[in-house]
């Protein structure tokens, strides 16, 4: 043990450490990991099942190999759901990033008002997506909603919200933005609070304009924080299910049918589990690649920002 501690800063020779000490971390970590892996066995099952014609209606199933995959990849409905997935992810992420960053910058100045708001603004983030939909139905309902009554003042009656093909996406994005903007806000605010003072004082002495300071100092140093926010929001938005399901179950028609919704309905309404899975596996690949890309960019930016 003493050799191990002495050598801590150098490279560790694992053979010098007694075996029981060397194995200890694995034992400690095992329960947590086993619980998680146990629940991830289904992931392997998902790949196998995607090659079968498994259905909850049929007593048995057989392998159909790539049939489900080929059907998925040649199905116009799949490309529609992919398009909805990307559209929804893009709209929610962009609106939340812009709004969250903007409000964080407004909260930068430390006043009593902003300190109270910082706490209050975290509230919507705690609301479950399904409950958020209920809350917004109280707002937008054409019979009792306060927004309807407000729009009536401006001469707009029975605004369709989630019920119409043209406004359903807007409504879903609005609810998602209401819930999740505080997440971006909090992360960017943490970034703002960690900004070092000296570069900004130097810029002020040099007489740099506010915009120039923001562009060359603030923004690059905030970017690593914004990337973390972007990573979390984008990953969640690509697989959003709760808000859309609670709002319209993918409707009206197939307006909000993203990949998650399509798979859920294929599996449970049409009882075809095998058919539902290829789309989800493709979504999982997309999410994984996006995450890897963003994590890589974030690390590079964090290093760059520290160079200032």
């Amino acid at each position, binding site marked *: 043990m003493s050799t191990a501690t002495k050598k801590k800063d150098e490279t*560790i020779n*694992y053979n010098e450490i007694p075996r029981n000490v*060397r194995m*200890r*971390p*694995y034992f*400690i*970590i095992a*329960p*947590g990991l086993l*619980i*998680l892996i*146990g*629940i*991830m066995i*289904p992931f392997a*099952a998902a790949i196998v099942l995607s090659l079968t014609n498994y259905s909850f209606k049929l007593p048995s199933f057989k392998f159909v190999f790539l049939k489900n995959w080929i059907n998925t990849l040649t199905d116009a409905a799949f490309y529609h759901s992919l398009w909805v997935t990307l559209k929804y992810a893009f709209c929610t992420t962009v609106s939340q990033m812009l*709004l969250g960053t903007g409000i964080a910058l*407004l909260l930068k*100045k430390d006043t009593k*008002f902003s300190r109270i708001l910082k*706490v*209050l*603004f*975290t*509230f*919507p983030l*705690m*609301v*479950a*997506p*399904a*409950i958020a939909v*209920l*809350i*917004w139905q*109280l*707002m937008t309902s054409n*019979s009792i909603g*306060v927004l309807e*009554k407000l729009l009536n003042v401006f001469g707009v009656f029975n605004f369709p919200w989630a019920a119409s093909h043209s406004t359903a996406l807007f409504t879903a994005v609005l609810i998602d933005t*209401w819930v999740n*903007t505080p997440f971006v806000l*909090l*992360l960017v605010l*943490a*970034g703002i609070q960690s900004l070092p003072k000296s570069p900004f004082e130097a810029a002020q002495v040099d007489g740099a304009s506010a915009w120039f300071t923001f562009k060359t100092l603030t923004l690059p140093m905030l970017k690593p924080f914004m990337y*973390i926010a972007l990573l979390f929001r984008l990953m969640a938005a*690509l697989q959003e*299910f*709760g808000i859309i399901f*609670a709002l319209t179950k993918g409707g009206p028609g197939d307006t909000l049918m993203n*990949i*998650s919704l399509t798979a*859920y309905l294929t599996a449970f309404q049409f009882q075809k*589990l095998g058919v539902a899975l290829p789309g*989800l596996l493709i*979504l999982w690949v997309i999410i*994984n690649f996006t*995450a890897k890309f963003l994590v890589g960019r974030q690390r590079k930016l964090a290093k760059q920002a520290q160079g200032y």
Partner: protein
Amino acid sequence: MNPNQLPKSKSHKSSLEILEAVGRNAGLSLYALFALFPLVWMLLCTFKSDAQMYNTVFRFTPTLENYEAVLLGTDYFKAFLQNLAVSGGAVLLTVVAGVPAAYALARYDFKNKEGIAFQILSFKFAPEIMVILPVFLIFQKIGLYDTYLGLIWVYQLITMPLLIWVVRGYFEDISVEVEQAAQLDGYSWFDVFFKTLLPLIKPGLVASGLLAFIFAWNSFTFPLVLSGFKIQTITITSLRYIASDTVHYGQVAVASTIAVLPEIIACLFIQKHLVRGLSFGAVKG
């Protein structure tokens, strides 16, 4: 700093500064309206009778009949308790299994450490529906469908990655010397862990446990697929209020309010740790 310059620069900036302050506060107020009014409106709606719901906006005679209807008349209260049991059980299991894992990932240097840590994180990013479809199948076969154990197990996908990553950071914040000093004093490893380390990370542990609880409480996809008639969670039960033929909006509002209230109270207690928890320890707010 120079006393002669101070008043001059102040008067020079004042009109611009006032304009900036007005703009800033206007922007903040607008966003505050967007973020908070829906919650206020929800609360107002809980006190409106069915008739007043349609013909009043802000001026009405408050009534408690919606609260009575929801809490006494239906199985909402049962769902509330069951949700509490499932979420609480999930967090408990996560703490028991996850804190040691977080400790190992923070303190020990072993092969594949970062690989294992990222594997744990990646569970968070797997599409919930993809995980849940085969789980549904397997749970029906092995009898875990619609049981507490089944739901608590699946909820580990929500709570465990969060807790391990956040608590790992709190362990890393404690210097190794603290541990070594305690060991030199003759404490066993077990004692060091429970008597010196755990008290030190307690605030962080409580905060991340509460946050994990909130996420579990909010879960929608898992209980939608994996629970049936026996176990009902609050998110699923609440949705039924809007699905019925004649919607009692007052009851919808009460159901939502009771679902949200515990979370907002919990959120007030963990403000200091919120950023760190939400970003899985990536940002130390």
